[in-house]
């Protein structure tokens, strides 16, 4: 059983890896360029090192005629007639030239990566994820936490990028440079190379071991710290409860305990991290000791030149261990990029369950007749939210829907702009099934005001014109006047150019809802949907909002969902929704005469009128 699960998991990893490689292939021009530059860099680095070594040998020979002859590559040598100074100038000139070339190559490498990765891949991927997110249905949003979704556009995309430069390019350049270094070293002296390399596997495994040991510890540390921060935020948010019941000491003690735990956990890590550095350090110094010992012996014997032999060798070892250290990082990078890629691909692959049909029926302006025909709806299979809902709304009608929490009234409303599709049955607009209409056309016919209205941190004008970005200021003002919010706006110092902060937290509930109303009616929609717009406000504010609603309703089919009798009683017809079924309908006075949920609710909401 467990085996099977592992198999499935590794299959999944394989699939993602292949897809990541395909993604990288799209940017192959950049990748190949990077690898090419890496090879050039390698060559110049080696040459620079070689010439420095040659310089030392050359001076040594000049100083001590008994020293061995400097060995020039490819059987070349300096012209015999050059003076010492000329030769020296030539060698130093070469060394400087190589450093300059290296410098330029490094610059091009970095810029090339930034261009094809940050400006190419990251921008492409972010835009793709974002535009997909914009189109995904509400069902998707219901089952995903928003913080996690945000991360997919920001940090996860960067982790996917890591696969290209932190895994593929890195791995290819490490393989190339390792083989070049090795060949070079071996061509110089095979035994010395083997002696020098003997500790490298040890360094690799120690690094790997420690990074593996430390990772869960760091994760645990971050988790504890997050917990502490969450607790402090809660402490501040609930301060009136804590102070109100005089429980400061008790809560403080709890916080201090978590603080203590953070410290204790950190102390555990400290020992591990502080022995890691020195162990790896000792190992690479051991390397140098071995080379000094054996290489020194060879130099002493005269079978290895000092400069272009021993000193170059030490330089090479240095670079080699750097490469080994970097390769430890690749393993982490693979992990990180696969996890992130999984999350990113999940979004890109998600089906847009709600979209326009291939050949949509186009409507310019609907009349506003809405029909529900035997509509069933469930969020999760088996849990019926709406059952066999049928009714017809004529254009221009004001319809109220009463229901308690969980009766399905908001769901019913959200079927009209196709935020969801019914599980069975159909919703029709002017006789057309909603699923046969162009989605954009449909939504343009419908203005929605939600329970708690989300405003964007843009200007008031931009917020009102949200659905009609090309609206003129006159249109905006007209909508604001209809929604009875124009007065308030003109009292603000910047009027319509006032920027709304933090989704409108500086506005009152009534102001927010009336702005949302203006936003809904600027499109002059034939249908207006009001989803309990006064649920979160007091009765004074409710009145304020309704002055706006009355203006906005005129000439439109309006559906208002509420659990307040006071909001509903002027409706042309009221439907009572209980556990997903319509149990009663009629006008206010008709329903008051019937025995049932409507009357009971009315009585509770108005208890004691008689006893005045």
């Amino acid at each position, binding site marked *: 059983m467990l085996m099977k699960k592992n198999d499935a998991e590794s299959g999944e990893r394989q699939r993602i890896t292949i897809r990541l490689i395909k993604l990288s292939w799209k940017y192959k021009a950049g990748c190949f360029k990077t690898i090419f530059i890496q090879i050039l860099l390698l060559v110049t680095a080696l040459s620079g090192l070689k010439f420095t070594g040659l310089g030392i040998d050359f001076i040594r020979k000049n100083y001590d005629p008994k020293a061995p002859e400097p060995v020039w590559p490819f059987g070349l040598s300096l012209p015999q007639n050059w003076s010492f100074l000329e030769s020296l100038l030539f060698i130093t000139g070469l060394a*400087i030239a190589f450093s300059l070339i290296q410098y330029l190559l490094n610059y091009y*490498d970095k810029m090339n990566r930034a261009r094809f990765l940050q400006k190419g891949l990251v921008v492409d991927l972010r835009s793709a994820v974002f535009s997909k997110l914009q189109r995904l249905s509400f069902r998707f949003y219901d089952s995903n936490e928003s913080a996690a979704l945000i991360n997919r556009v920001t940090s996860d995309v960067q982790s996917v990028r890591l696969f290209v430069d932190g895994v593929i390019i890195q791995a290819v350049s490490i393989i190339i440079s390792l083989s070049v270094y090795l060949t070079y070293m071996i061509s110089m002296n095979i035994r010395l190379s083997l002696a020098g390399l003997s500790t490298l596997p040890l360094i690799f495994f120690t690094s790997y071991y420690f990074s593996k040991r430390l990772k869960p510890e760091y994760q645990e540390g971050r988790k504890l710290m997050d917990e502490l921060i969450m607790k*402090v935020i809660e402490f501040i948010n609930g*301060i009136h409860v804590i102070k*109100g*019941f005089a429980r400061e000491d008790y809560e403080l003690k709890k916080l201090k305990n978590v603080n203590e735990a953070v410290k204790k956990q950190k102390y555990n890590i400290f020992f591990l991290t502080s022995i890691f550095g020195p*162990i790896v350090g000792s190992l690479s110094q051991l390397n140098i000791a071995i080379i000094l010992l054996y290489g020194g012996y060879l130099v002493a014997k005269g079978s290895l030149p000092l400069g272009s032999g021993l000193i170059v060798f030490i330089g090479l070892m240095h670079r080699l261990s750097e490469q080994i250290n970097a390769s430890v990082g690749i393993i982490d990078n693979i992990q990180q990029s696969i996890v992130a890629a999984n999350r990113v691909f999940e979004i890109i692959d998600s089906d847009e369950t709600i979209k326009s049909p291939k050949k949509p029926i186009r409507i310019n302006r609907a009349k506003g007749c809405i029909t529900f025909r035997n509509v069933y709806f469930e969020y999760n299979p088996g849990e019926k939210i709406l059952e066999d809902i049928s009714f017809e709304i004529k254009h221009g009608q004001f319809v109220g829907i009463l229901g308690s929490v969980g009766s399905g009234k908001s769901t019913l409303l959200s079927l009209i702009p196709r935020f969801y599709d019914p599980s069975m049955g159909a919703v029709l607009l002017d006789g057309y099934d909603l699923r046969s209409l162009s989605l954009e056309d449909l939504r343009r016919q*419908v203005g929605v005001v939600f329970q708690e209205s989300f405003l964007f941190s843009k200007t008031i004008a931009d917020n009102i014109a949200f659905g009609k970005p090309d609206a003129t200021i006159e249109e905006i003002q007209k909508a604001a006047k209809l929604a009875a919010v124009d007065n308030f706006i003109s009292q603000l110092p910047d009027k319509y150019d006032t920027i709304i902060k933090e989704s409108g937290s500086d506005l009152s509930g009534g102001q927010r809802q009336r702005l949302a109303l203006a936003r809904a009616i600027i499109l002059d929609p034939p249908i207006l949907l009001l989803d309990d717009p006064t649920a979160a*406000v007091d*009765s004074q504010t409710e009145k304020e909002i309704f002055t706006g609603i009355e203006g906005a309703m005129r000439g439109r089919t309006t559906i208002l969902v509420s659990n307040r009798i006071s909001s509903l009683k002027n409706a042309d017809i009221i439907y009572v929704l209980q556990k997903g079924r319509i149990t009663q309908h009629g006008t206010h006075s008709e329903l008051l005469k019937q025995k049932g949920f409507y009357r009971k609710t009315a009585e509770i909401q108005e208890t004691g009128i008689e006893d005045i």
Partner: protein
Amino acid sequence: MKHFRVKNNFNEDIPSEISLKLFWRIFKYTAPYARKRNILFILVILRSIQLLVITWMIGKIINGPISSGNFRDILLSVIGFFAFVIFTQFCFIFRSKLAMELGESVIFDLRKEVLEHLAEMRMSYFTKTKVGRIISRFTSDAEALRSGIQNVVFVSLVQFGGMLVASILMCYYDWQLFMCVLALGPVVLLLDRYFRKRLMKAYRDVQESFSRVTSNVVESIRGIKVVQGFSREKLNSKQFSKLVDTHADYNIKVAENESVFLPLLELNSQVFIAILLLIAGIRVHNGTLELSTLIQFFFLSNFFFSPINVIAGQFNMALTAIAGAERLFNFLDEKPDWVDRPTATYIEIKGKVEFKKVNFSYKKGTPILKDISFSAEPGMTIALVGHTGSGKSTITNLIAKFYLPDSGEILIDGKNILDIQTSCIRKKMGIVLQSNFLFNGSVMENILLGKENSSENDAIEAAEKLECRDIIEALPEGFNTIVGENGVGLSLGQRQIICFCRAMLANPKIFILDEATSSVDSITEEKIQNALSKLLKDRTSFVIAHRLSIVRKADLILMMENGEIVERGNHHQLLKQRGKYAKLYREFQLAK
């Protein structure tokens, strides 16, 4: 929330110099760990010498035994070399462990101080301070300070020590050659300063453009209903692509600066080595320089150049640390608005509450309460009625001693509240506010918060008294159901009932209720009304009321307007007056 944190301190100023006073204050925090700190200093000085000695030894071995070709000497010196390496690394274990422990200990103490400070601050502080600000003191500022303590001083010391010893050695070998090294020093320093400034600006641009990207994503996701409801998907995606593109441009600018600057330092030392080769080569040729000196210089010069870069980096880190410390200390230095008088006593509260000519304002110059006087006998229910902003909740805030009046007196059982210990009042008080705040944890834990040293049975008993035990037990896990932000979603009515139980457990003499304005679904409403009437019984209760049923039954209604009591009396008396209350009541009725 947990994974999503926008860096919030890039717009806060970074000082350009290091203040000694501040430095001293940070240093004092290491006093409890003086032994650790002092050993650390010794280790650090030791290390700066050790690192250099290692390099010097390599040069020495090459020049000595290897050049002269004596294998016995090579073996001995390499063994000596490796022994010294082991000793150095052994010291380093303690050097890094102690530095980390010292940093963590200091930050631990600071975090503790922040927590204690928070518990001590008064209500006014929390209303005017944003949570994000407090949290960034706790996180980014404390972390900056930690890296300051762990790294800046010690790393700089090691580097500086190495540089110094290297200079002395080079001078000793050949002062003329050393002059060449010295001449390049200022060049490196100037380059470093110039580019670092440009880099800082580039980093800031990247951060700023990134926070625009994230806030755009946040809004688009949180407002997805509106986006789709108004068919803005295409336009939004276009705008977003533009933002991401700009962000990428800033990233490229950073890459450009980095790739010009960082390799430049390496180039510098390569150029130096080439120059060294040239000058030294001529001099060796002329016989005025030993070859061995050239090789030593080859190794030692590195110890002179690389610290310049490292120390410059540390200086920037120090500035960030100091800026963090400054904000942290400013935060800790804020004093609570008031503290209990030393003469304040603990009394057995019966529940009489009096206001005598009380004036109050949150902000100077905008009075919220004007000349408020009233008296409530033990057991009375007082309903506070009036529009938003009329001062209703301010009155309850003053009774709870969350704030002190500007003038006038508030008396409990005839005694000025200034002379009563704050905790004594709060322990005899129950509060339920509009927000019906629940902590992350079980329902049981939330109820038990009402009174210290109470048992689970007490909590269940409290729920029984309110006839709400069945409602709580109907939750998925009953009393053990996890609630709060990470817990199961509760309806407003359910949350309110848990808060009622919490207040009931406290068995208060004074009960404060700020009714929720949102509509509770009507069937739960009945249950709440019932529980409420039990809570209000036999306690002095102050209710900011939205339900007429409570207002009608109140012993005293205070009708508030612009911070004044405009009418007072019970329901019938006020209706007869045909004043503002009667008008408000008619509006209420009309709305029904």
